[in-house]
């Protein structure tokens, strides 16, 4: 944790809502898909920044996985978040990306505890147009255990071309959702609205998530 990060912790006593984005930036995303993904990410940033409470509470981290897994943005409150621009290249190391997201969340929770900050259940939001090219079973098992004990909430969204059967073996608690192309922006706005709901919830509240009808294919 940088000193700047520590200062951020000290001056903002709001409870934190951590959200990790796992974004597929493999070669197959090149062209329209990656451009729309980047646009969506910026819409996500703008929408959350427009909510004064959420911008102090939601913390975003962004991993891209394309060839390598890169932490494009470590956890930061939305008010200090600049959406990174992703470039498409390489294969799809999804298993490693999931593992590193879970590691990052564990570290972040420890940081919150040290700083005496309250926090909400972290979200991991994965978007992919393919299937993992690395060893993913161990990461999927770990993810299942973590979900089982309530450590994270995991969502998987598949873009056209994604292997939904395989995604369902990774996202076991919640079946993967199919993105209506090219509704990246609507999807990210749903995510920011959801994070607003989560970060505004009071003890004892049940979080009501907005409808995903505008961007997700309804399973038939």
């Amino acid at each position: 944790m940088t000193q700047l990060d520590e200062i951020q912790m000290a001056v903002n006593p709001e409870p934190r809502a951590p959200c990790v984005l796992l974004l597929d930036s493999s070669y197959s995303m090149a062209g329209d898909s990656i451009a729309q993904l980047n646009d969506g990410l910026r819409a996500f940033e703008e929408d959350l920044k427009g909510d004064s409470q959420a911008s102090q509470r939601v913390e975003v981290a962004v991993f891209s996985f394309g060839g390598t897994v890169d932490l494009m943005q470590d956890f930061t409150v939305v008010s200090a978040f600049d959406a990174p621009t992703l470039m498409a290249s390489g294969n799809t190391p999804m298993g490693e990306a999931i593992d590193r997201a879970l590691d990052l969340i564990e570290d972040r929770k420890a940081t919150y505890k040290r700083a005496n900050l309250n926090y909400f259940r972290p979200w991991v939001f994965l978007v992919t147009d393919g299937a993992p090219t690395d060893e993913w079973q161990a990461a999927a098992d770990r993810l299942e255990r973590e979900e089982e004990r309530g450590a994270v909430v995991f969502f998987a969204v598949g873009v056209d071309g994604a292997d939904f059967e395989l995604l369902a073996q990774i996202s076991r608690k919640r079946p993967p959702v199919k993105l209506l192309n090219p509704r990246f922006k609507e999807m990210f706005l749903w995510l920011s609205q959801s994070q607003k709901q989560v970060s505004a919830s009071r003890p004892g509240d049940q979080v009501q998530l907005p409808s995903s009808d505008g961007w997700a294919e309804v399973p038939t």
Partner: protein
Amino acid sequence: MRLVSALLDMVWRRSAWDPEGIPEPVAKEARPSAPPRRHRPTGGWRTVGCSVRGTSHRAAGTPCEDVSTIVALERGLVLAVADGAGSAAWARLGATRAIGGACEVAVGRLFRDGAPADAEGWDRLLIECLQGARRAVEAEGEAVHELASTLLVAILYDDTLAVAQVGDGWVVAEDREGGLRAVTRPAKGEYFNETVFVTSSSYLESASRSVEPAEEVTGLALLSDGLEMVACELAAGRPHAGFFGPLFAYVRDPSDSSAVKCRALVRLLDSEQVNCRTSDDKTLLVAVRGSRLENQVSGFGPAQDPRADR
């Protein structure tokens, strides 16, 4: 002294009143044969308090789901706060029942058996209060999770302070030097939006309880979590001295009547400064020891002290 000046500066405007926010009538001393008194002794404690509907509840048309009461006894007080869960359909009813059940046990036991002899006895009484709250909620016959609420119960009686807490909220004690501390700890889950309710299966194990001598306690405040953003330093986990210092001083100040203080409190809790920090219902109950003179008249001595009937 920002709070006091804020309190005093506020001009009484009828429009500022929220009928939901007017404090529930303080229950009369439960002993029916008690002779009428000009002064309620309450062991020398003076109180103000109210629950005020939050802006989000007002906007959504839901009632104030914080419920609170102060029961004045000959030798002390029972104070209780319940915060009905946002996810519960009958949150206000559940909170009301929880308070009723807890106070009935506390007041009934103190009248029938007198004060418990030792700390273990007090602790048992606290557990019985929580069980009484649970029974009263279950007696409604609904699915209990639709009646979920948190519960704070504080008993100031003779020279004892006994407090039980289920779920979040704060019970803050002030000592003679002006030191402030949370008497009990909120039972929380790992996540901020999780808490324990009277209706949770783990309500007894996760309850925080405290029994201690009350000699050094000069002020006590109970608040629901709706106020914690304003009144507490959450990161440090302690009450905010800038809030409670002036608050206890104001409640102690004899120049305003308690009716005036109650109205000032309602206005404070419904003020722009508070509402911009929280949209939730909020409750604040405050008890302070009276002045030394009052204490000599009606204070810590035995209840039969003839001077108490002055």
